[in-house]
Each structure stands twice: as C-alpha cells, then as structure tokens.
C-alpha cells in the first residue's frame, strides 16, 4: 500500500504535465491542419494590365506562395454565344490579365487586407479581389481553445512542478537516512542513490504509459473521431507516434532531474 502511495505522488504530477503537453501537441496539429485547409480555400485574384510573376511581388510579403495566370479564353467562351464577334473582339482587346495568387499559409483578415493594399501599389496591378470560404468563426474558436488550453496547461504545469518539488522534499527526507548509512559504509554515489533513480525511472514509465494508453484509447474512441470529423480535422491527428519520443523525453527527463536534485542536495551529517 505504501509502495503504491510512494509511486502515486510523482506519477500523478508527471501524468498531468505529460497530458497537458500531449493536449497542446494535438490541438496545435488540429489548428495547423485547419490553417492548411483555409489557406487552400483562400484565393486572391489580381487584375493587372501587364504580366505579374511571383518574383515581382514575393518581396512584399512572405505569405505570397504562387502566382498563376488565369486563362481568359475560358471565360470568354462562356459568353461567346450571347455576344457578337465584334463585341468579343473588343473585349479581348481591352480585357486585363487575371492572376490567381495562392498563399503560403493561412493569415487573418487584417493581414490579408494589408497584403491587398500593398499589391495594389505594385505597378500594373489594377484590382485585387479576395475570395474566401466562411471558416473564420470556427478558426477563431480553435485559436481561443488553443490559447485557453495553453493557459490551463501552464497553470497545470506550475501546480505539477510545485507538487514535484514537494515530493522531492519528501524523497529527500525518506531516503536521507539510508543514503547516510550507506555513505558511512563507503557506498559510492551511484549505489546509495540507486533506489531513488529506480523509483524515478519506474514513476516516469508509469506516467508515460498512462498518457500513451489514454491517447491511444482516445484515438480509437468513436466519439472523439466523430468530433474531429465534424470540425473537418483528420482523426489521425489525435495521436502520432512521434509524440511518444516527446512524452518519453519529458517524462524521464523531469523524473531523473528530480532524483538528481535530491542526490545533489545530500550532505553527510557530522
């Protein structure tokens, strides 16, 4: 019973830290994926009286991804039957050039408006039209959830670190006597702190395994999958195998640092 209690204190704190990190990783992936979709759905049409190449305008903003000319003939073909040949020929003479500008990444409305006004100052560009699908509300909500979770994550992190520090003080007290006695009989540091490091490794593994199991469960949970699908996100975003390395590094890193801190503070009594 005591053994379980010994493990719980550190394992729960570590679990809280790891779960926060994993939640932030998942949310970050969802937001990025959503931004990617939005970026694809955004389209800026440039109307110009001369050819515009990406090299002419890329210096304006790093957002600019590519510039593709739009074939005007396809538009004219649609109205071919409704106009005389003479009118069409006149339209052809005065018709400007159209270009589709694709963005590198998604940007908010304000940045797009700024880009528009800068594009309008480029020689030859007459008009800039923005076509977008209405996604801004959901995106804003995702950003809000992300910043809220980051804040809660930070708070949970701080509380967990305080718990860890408290646990370290308990460890220091609990292991001091044994380390003291072993030291008096000539035990080297690695031997007298072996129990502590073993405890740290076991606790780190327990917390790591608990978080990975939770995430694996969620990634196969139908409700979680449906929720992600409902906001247009890929359910695979819920758990990536790359996360295992991050979670293991944090879990073992924090736990072993705590044990090393206790060992470093050990001082033989006179």
């Amino acid at each position, binding site marked *: 019973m005591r053994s379980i209690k010994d493990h719980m204190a550190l394992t729960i704190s570590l679990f809280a830290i790891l779960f926060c990190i994993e939640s932030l990783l998942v949310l970050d992936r969802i937001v990025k994926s959503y931004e990617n979709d939005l970026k694809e759905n955004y389209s800026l049409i440039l109307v110009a009286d001369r050819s515009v190449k990406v090299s002419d305008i890329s210096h304006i903003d790093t957002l600019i991804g590519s510039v593709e000319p739009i074939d005007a003939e396809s538009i004219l073909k649609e109205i071919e039957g409704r106009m005389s040949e003479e009118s069409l020929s006149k339209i052809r003479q005065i018709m400007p050039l159209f270009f589709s500008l694709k963005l590198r990444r998604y940007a908010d409305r304000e940045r797009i408006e700024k880009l528009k006004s800068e594009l309008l100052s480029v020689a030859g560009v007459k008009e800039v039209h923005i076509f977008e699908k209405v996604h801004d509300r959901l995106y804003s909500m995702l950003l809000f959830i992300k910043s809220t979770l980051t804040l809660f994550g930070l708070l949970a992190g701080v509380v967990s670190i305080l718990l860890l520090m408290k646990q370290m003080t308990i460890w220091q007290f609990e292991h001091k*006597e*044994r380390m003291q*006695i072993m*030291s*008096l*009989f*000539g*035990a*080297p540091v690695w031997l007298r702190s072996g129990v502590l490091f073993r405890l740290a490794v076991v606790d780190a593994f327990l917390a790591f395994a608990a978080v990975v199991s939770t995430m694996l469960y969620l990634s196969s949970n139908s409700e979680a999958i449906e929720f992600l699908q409902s906001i247009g996100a890929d359910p695979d975003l819920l758990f990536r195998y790359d996360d295992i390395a991050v979670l293991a590094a944090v879990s073992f890193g924090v736990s072993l640092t705590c044990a090393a801190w206790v060992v470093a503070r050990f001082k033989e*009594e006179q």
Partner: protein
Amino acid sequence: MQKVIEAAGLKLAYPRHEPVIKSASFEVETGEFVFITGASGSGKSTLLKSMYGSMPIYGGELQVGGIDMGSISGSKLYKLRRHIGIIFQDYKLIREWNVEKNVMLPLIISGFPKDVCRAQAQKLLTHVKLSHKSDKYPMELSGGEQQRVAMARALAHNPFLILADEPTGNLDDYSSQVVWDLLERANEELDTTILVVTHHIPEMLSANYRHLMIENGVLYEIH
C-alpha cells in the same frame, strides 16, 4: 607491528566553536583492543568520527590505515570506509531493509555476489544468535537485537579496524555480553583492531586492552 591509527597533536572543532579535542597524540597498532573513555561531551564520539572521515581535521595530523585523514578525497574516503566496521550507539540500521540485508550491506558495497553476501550474513547472524530473525525488519526487534545486527554488519566484511561508539550504552546485560564476546573473538581470532568509545570499561572483558582517556580536550594514556 603495523600502525593502524596515528594521531599527532590532533585538534578537532565544530564550525564556529572552540576545539573539542585540543590535543590528541597516540598510536594504535594492528590487533590492539583500545578503549577511549571520558565524561559526556568530552569529545569521545567526535574523535571516533574523525577516524571514519565524518569530522574534518582542525589541526595536527591523523592517519588511519596509512591514509592522511586531513587531505583525504571523497573516493579515497569511501574506499577506506569499505575496510572499516563501525558500530553506532543508535545502531543506524536501514529501516526498509530486513535484518539479513542490513548485515549484507558492507558486502554489497564491496561488490560481492549475492550468494556470498547471504552466506556470510547467515553465518554472522548465527554468531549473534539472531539467525531466526533474518527476515524481520529493524523496527520489529528490541534495542539489544538491533545492536547485535549492527555488530554482525560491522564484522561482515572482515574489516581491519572496528570503531564502536558506546556499543552497549542502551543494551541489556545479555546483549552487552554478546557484543563484547564478539568483539573479543574478532580481536583474538582475526587480529582485528578494535577501538571503543565508552563511559566505562566492562568488567566482563578478558582481553588485554589499552585505556585512553579524554579530559578537558586532551587525550591521556591510562595504561
């Protein structure tokens, strides 16, 4: 005879305090049985601590096993301690380890295989008449039994020197007898050097011994 302990003009002091030991000059040779007596607070335990490196040298010189305790480094000190057996008045047993494992401690530290450690621990527990309690934990034993376990631990690795701080101070007659018998046997049969700090020398002792006394911070040879 080889010198095990050599002290010359030794001074010992706790930080920001007057020296507890103002002058101690003595030599202990292999196989000697030495008692250091003195009143409470005279510095007996402090002198003993300096011999296993738990008390820094304030002045003078102290050599244990040919090693200068004034300039000893961490790793050398741990190496030296692996060849010394220490008995404390408060036993200093590891509470979360059972009796057998406590006795095995010096052997584990010296890197002996587990079966060797176990066999030696069982042999010593038989000597201290506690083989039937090898699975018990220190808290389940009486004070006398705990000190007998500490005694077995001090002898487990055949040390060249045993330092004992009031080993029978809190014990009943039976446990005291077991402790003195074992110390005498180690001294006679294994030629182990024994240095005991105590209030008074036991009458039951049959071994030849030297008697040193501390008075007003100075160490004197009585006989």
